């Protein structure tokens, strides 16, 4: 296939546009069918949440792969400090959909408070800390948490997720510096939005990519294509393993595609993995429809349980 302005540069491809694996073993290492179901479920829930027209809401469609992969890699004792647009991770950590909706819709009885429109969820049972109201301050909390783990020799990785927007925010730059200076066991997962055209000044995209900037801070850093679930998974796997081994901070920059801007279909992580599964003979339209219908009905049931009219 020809490279389009929609294809990120500087990334190693593991699952290509056509849904072909660079390393066929990946299909054995990874339960790609299960991951596909999670991706698709996350997509359906994001679509339905987006339709609710919540204030300040932005869809997460196109950026699910890093979060689903991360969910598969994390252990119970690991902690995540969320930067937003990562409800799929909350779901894969086991937060109940009703609790997700309580928080995201600002209903009574929510256990944790999240900022309006952040598209994030917190849960003290699931070691999932939501974003702060002030931009990016949860990243600095994450470094402190990792420091406590390091001092206490507690097992576990600390992860902070965020978007490229936050990489120009001072408090985040400071937190990255602290992690580097103290060699803390933390994984930064940055979802960098892909701009097929010139990014606006607001986008925080200039010079080399986020991973290059972190690399010069002395971090292990990788840049991967967020549409390529296998590449994303493998980079995060290495990053988590390094953090578990006390090898200091890692940055995994995942280039994510804003699907609402209608990129070519292969830029959709769901579609790309679907192509692989179809070729492998483990995808049918019917099974696809069933996953979608299940997710939809789960969503509607949860809303109903909470007494929300649609």
């Amino acid at each position, binding site marked *: 296939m020809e490279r389009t302005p929609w294809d990120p540069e500087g990334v190693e491809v593991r699952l290509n546009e056509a849904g072909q694996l660079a390393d066929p073993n990946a299909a054995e290492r990874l339960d790609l069918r299960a991951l596909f179901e999670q991706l698709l479920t996350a997509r359906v829930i994001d679509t339905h949440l987006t339709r609710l027209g919540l204030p*300040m809401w932005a869809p997460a469609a196109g950026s699910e792969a890093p979060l689903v992969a991360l969910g598969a890699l994390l252990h119970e004792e690991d902690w995540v400090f969320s930067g937003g647009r990562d409800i799929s991770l909350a779901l894969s950590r086991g937060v109940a959909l009703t609790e997700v909706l309580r928080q995201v819709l600002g209903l009574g009885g929510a256990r944790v408070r999240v900022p*309006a429109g952040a598209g994030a969820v917190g849960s003290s049972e699931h070691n999932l800390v939501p974003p702060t109201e002030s*931009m990016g301050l949860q990243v600095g909390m994450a470094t402190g948490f990792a420091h406590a783990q390091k001092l206490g020799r507690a097992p576990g990785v600390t992860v902070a997720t965020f978007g490229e927007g936050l990489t*120009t*925010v001072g408090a985040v730059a400071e937190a990255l510096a602290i992690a580097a200076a103290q060699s803390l066991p933390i994984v930064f997962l940055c979802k960098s939005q892909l701009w097929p055209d010139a990014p*606006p000044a607001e986008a925080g995209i200039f010079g080399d990519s986020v991973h290059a900037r972190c690399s010069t801070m002395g971090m292990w850093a990788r840049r991967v294509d967020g549409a390529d679930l296998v590449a994303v998974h493998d980079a995060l796997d290495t990053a988590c393993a390094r953090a578990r081994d006390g090898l200091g901070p890692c940055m995994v920059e995942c280039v994510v595609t804003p699907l609402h801007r209608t990129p070519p279909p292969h830029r959709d992580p769901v579609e790309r993995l679907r192509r692989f599964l179809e070729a492998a003979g483990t995808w049918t339209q019917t099974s696809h429809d069933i996953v979608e219908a299940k997710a939809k009905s789960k969503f509607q049931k949860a809303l109903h349980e909470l007494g929300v009219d649609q």
Partner: protein
Amino acid sequence: MTTVLEQLSRVVADLLREDRRRVVLGEDVRDGGMLGLTRAAVEDEAISPRLLGLPLTSTAGLTHAAGLAIGGARPLMLMPSVAALVEGLAALRETTRFSKRYDTERALPLLLIAPCGPGFGLGGDAAMDAVSHLTCVEGLRVVVGAEPSEFPALLRAAASFDAGESPTVLLLPRNLLLREMDPAAEEDLEDAIDQVRTLEHGDELTVFCWGAAVERVQQAAQRADASVRVTDLVSLQPLDRDGILEAARATGRVVIVTPSAPSNGPSCQIAALLADEAILHLDAPVKHLYGRTGDVEARHEHDLIPSIDAITSTLNATATY
């Protein structure tokens, strides 16, 4: 009819046309701005180059605006929320005292426009008015709108730094921004923006209020069993001390109604002023009415403004104390 926001967007464009030194900064300003305040300006090629987009920052966007002002520009900065001013408080402090420290004749002509308070269903920091934080910044001018049809005139007045005014925050209560208004009926300001405005001229009781509280206070004043003098502070910093003392002494009874959680902002400063300089004129305790306390959830954000019932009963109780 048009919305207040649409009308303000026209004023922003006019301000850019009227003075080439003006520039507009803020998130997405080249794309209409987060509130749509640059929608008119993006359409006009003569002024759109002065819409300046910056990466997301907490502090350096504000100091950047200050630097533009040092360089002779007149920046209007469109904040996503008053919360952003609290995040950048250190920058506000440095900006406000710059001219005194650096020995320049004029204060930096910087206008920060921030929506505040409940109205968009956001809750949390977006629903605060942050007035207590802002009024800790010595020398910062803080002005808050209360009557939507006057917002355009208020913006024009706040954007004129011809008398060397200090850096200014113009707070626009969110619940008023989506009101409809007749563009032709755009009102001029009757008073200077540094003076209290008397909206009802009763003589038994004085209410001090501002921003999103004003409308409810006016309604409560209609219902109350007393003749109420309703005073809109307009300028929360500096306070119009003479106007406040005069209004308090005129009736001898005072209620302060704040459109936010309890805080140590202007309401306490007014009470302290009265306890010092008007105590012998007061016939009843100075009562404060605040909205809901704490980190307010979206579904409760309107409780940040005291209810008409609560205001009415406090007015009645104070009038008959």
